[in-house]
């Protein structure tokens, strides 16, 4: 079976401006969302308490809210349905450092009149830990970007690295925009998902770029657009196939993996789609926009090759004792 005719070359670069424009709109929209509505930080990063309760009958959400509001510590409690109508999540911004009797115990006694229930999860993150986790999270994300930057620039010419980093920024901001839009609680697992997207999307881009580099080195063509078109078309089946298999599994994770990893799989789902789109339509366009010149590149490569040969010649002469 084949999805794309492997000998057909599509003219991606001829239509790069509409795609870049489309991406620009998405990225701007994402930034607007990020700066107006902002990320909805979960308790991992903001500190607070989260309690998951499962009732034997549909949960009396309003009654629970009314009961909680009566205690001034829980005034700001947010009660939301979680997956099934029988299950709810209570989120409270307050925490306690008391070990013997904690917020979970208090909530347990407050909820007693609401029916038959079972507390399935209590997460409490103190402000100190929240701060530390946030710091670590920012650290991890920046470090990942820096290391990737170093790795890519070590592997490719600088325009390639800049283009792939731009593509990454594109993917991450759109994914973050989607997180804001769909009100996903940003916890540690979302950070892990973002970092995974980072690796995944770069992975896709690098495979396309690897092919472009191969094309530049081997083909006789010196028009960048046609080399890029050819390389992107050649890798098209691979990009879509791998994305499809990954998409399948992430989709099953999203649909059947349970409420708890829903945010995680949602973020991955968006990331896989955006990452695939960007490595086909956006990353190489950046490369073309950056005025990558095949002729110059070849000249530099030839020069490098010449120098290497010269050095080898000198060395062998030296070793043979002729100098």
């Amino acid at each position, binding site marked *: *079976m*084949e999805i794309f005719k*492997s*000998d057909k070359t599509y003219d991606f670069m001829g239509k790069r401006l509409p795609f870049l424009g489309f991406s620009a709109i998405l990225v701007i929209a994402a930034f607007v969302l990020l700066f107006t509505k902002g990320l909805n930080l979960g308790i991992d990063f903001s500190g607070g308490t989260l309690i*998951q309760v*499962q009732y034997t009958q549909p949960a009396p959400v309003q009654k629970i809210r009314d009961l909680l509001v009566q205690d001034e510590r829980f005034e700001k409690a947010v009660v939301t349905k979680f997956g099934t109508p029988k299950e709810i999540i209570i989120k409270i911004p307050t925490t*306690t*450092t*008391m*070990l*013997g*009797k*904690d917020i*979970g*115990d208090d909530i*347990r006694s407050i909820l007693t009149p609401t029916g038959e229930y*079972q*507390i*399935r*999860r*209590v*997460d*409490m993150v103190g402000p*100190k*830990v929240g701060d530390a986790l946030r710091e*670590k*999270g920012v*650290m*991890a994300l920046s*470090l*990942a970007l820096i*290391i*990737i930057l170093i*790795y890519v620039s070590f592997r490719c010419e600088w325009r390639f690295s800049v283009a792939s980093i731009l593509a990454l920024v594109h993917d991450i901001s759109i994914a973050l925009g989607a997180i804001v839009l769909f009100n996903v609680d940003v916890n540690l*697992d979302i950070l*892990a998902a973002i*970092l*995974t997207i*980072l*690796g995944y999307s770069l*992975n896709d881009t*690098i*495979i396309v770029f*690897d092919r472009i580099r191969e094309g530049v080195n081997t083909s006789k063509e010196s028009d960048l657009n046609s080399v890029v078109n050819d390389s992107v078309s*050649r890798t098209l089946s*691979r990009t879509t*196939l*791998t994305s499809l*298999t*990954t998409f*399948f*599994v*992430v989709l*099953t*994770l999203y649909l*059947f*993996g*349970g409420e*708890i*990893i829903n945010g995680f799989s949602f973020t991955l789902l968006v990331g896989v789609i955006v990452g695939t789109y960007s490595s086909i339509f956006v990353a190489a366009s950046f490369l073309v926009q950056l005025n990558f010149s095949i002729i110059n590149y070849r000249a530099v490569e030839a020069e490098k090759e010449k120098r290497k040969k010269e050095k080898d010649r000198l060395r062998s002469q030296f070793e043979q004792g002729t100098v």
Partner: protein
Amino acid sequence: MQYLNYRLVIFTLVTVFGIVFSIPSFLQTNDGKKISLGLDLQGGLHMLLGVETQKAVEGKIKTLAATVKYFTDNEDILIEDLTIKKDNLSFILLDSDEVSKLDTMLAEIKGLDISKGADFYYTIKLTPIEIEVVKDMAVGQAVETIRNRLDQFGLAEPSVTRQGNNDIVVELPGIKTAQEEQHARELIAKPANLELMEVDELKSDQVYNLSDDDAQDMGDIILEDTNSAEIKYLLKQIPILTGSEVVDAKVAFDQQTNQPIINFTLSSFGAKVFGDFTAKSVGKRLAVVLDGKVFSAPVIRERIGGGSGQISGNFTVNEAGNVAIALRSGALPAPVIMLEKRSVGPSLGADSINASMFALVSGFVLVVIFMIVYYGLGGVIANIALITNIFIIIAVMAMFGATLTLPGMAGIVLTVGMAVDANVIISERIRELLKSGASIPKAIEDGYSNAMSAILDANITTLLVAVILYAYGTGPIKGFAITISIGILASMLTAILGTHGIYEALMPKMVKDKNLKKWFGVK
């Protein structure tokens, strides 16, 4: 015949390793190393506790004061105004002849910073180094104490480990209900600071008119009765003995009231101090203070030798048991506070396992079918590599005793999607070469070598991210990083080496057959 080649041999060995070492985890046998489930999958309680080490320094000062008092009483050295402030204690030595005796005694205690003012006004502090030592020991001792208590509580596999300078991680997989959890938390939190204190009989009747500050100025302290906050006692601030001298504690029942009580036994030094004190304090009251509450204050009728005593109060049997465990396992040198808590009920854990297993199996089946439809027998070969990959992940995790968490499960699911990537890249290259007219052996050889640089790049970037996640992630996220990393490394063996070996072994057949549609899914 080319059936045997080194790639196939390595792949077979790796597969056997994967299957053998993952059997204990799959079948949950009793023998062999198994993957342990994270608390988010099996249910349990995870807590990050902080130790308030400053309080340990204060406690140390208090013990020091008791030592000074006991020594001077014993040696008939007159001192007055023995007072404790937060981080120092001070007193005035009245017998100037005794300076050298006192100084010799103090010199024997390490880490003191002693300054003498006019009129032999002593101020004793701990040196900065000693303060660090005390704080460090407080955390170490808290870890030991909590571990002891939890061991005696009878939970399965409690784990108590120190994290960083001041923090302690407690993991209790055995917790089933909220009540059980609360019980365990109370047990950990119990300071179990037993103090035997002298009632200040001279001023005792003024207790209801004094403020805490007034009491402190007199070297006293006001404490409430355990049963009623209305009843107060005026006690000498410096205890006669502290719980550090308790060597054993047991629950017993009062013969008259049949109420649970706790009998404790003192060390030989403690017994001596206790005996000496009771001998000269007949007629006075002795308060038994536990965690800042007075449990009883009986009148001393005679010298109490033998070094044992009892705590009575309105205990339930459970409470008395807790107190006894806490006393036996030693006092917490400083209070612990809760910084983070994650508790998952076993039913939620089971739900998570079911959900993620379902996602894993259905994702796996989808990928397997897709690969076969798209690549024909080449897809089957890739699938063999994929299955081996999962076995290897399980086997390696079991060997290292790694913990499988919910994000870890997600990592395995994701690996299923991404591990076939290498085979997709290779198969596409082979197809390309076949179309350009290469022979099957040549297409396979070059397909693998052409694909290599892209596969390596892709795997290295993902691996780099996984390493960062491992370094900066906590708990469950680390699990994700682990499964992804093992999956990627394993895919190098299975998807690259393994499939190549299988192709080589099948080469004579393929060359004879020449059915590209059947083998590679192309015409």
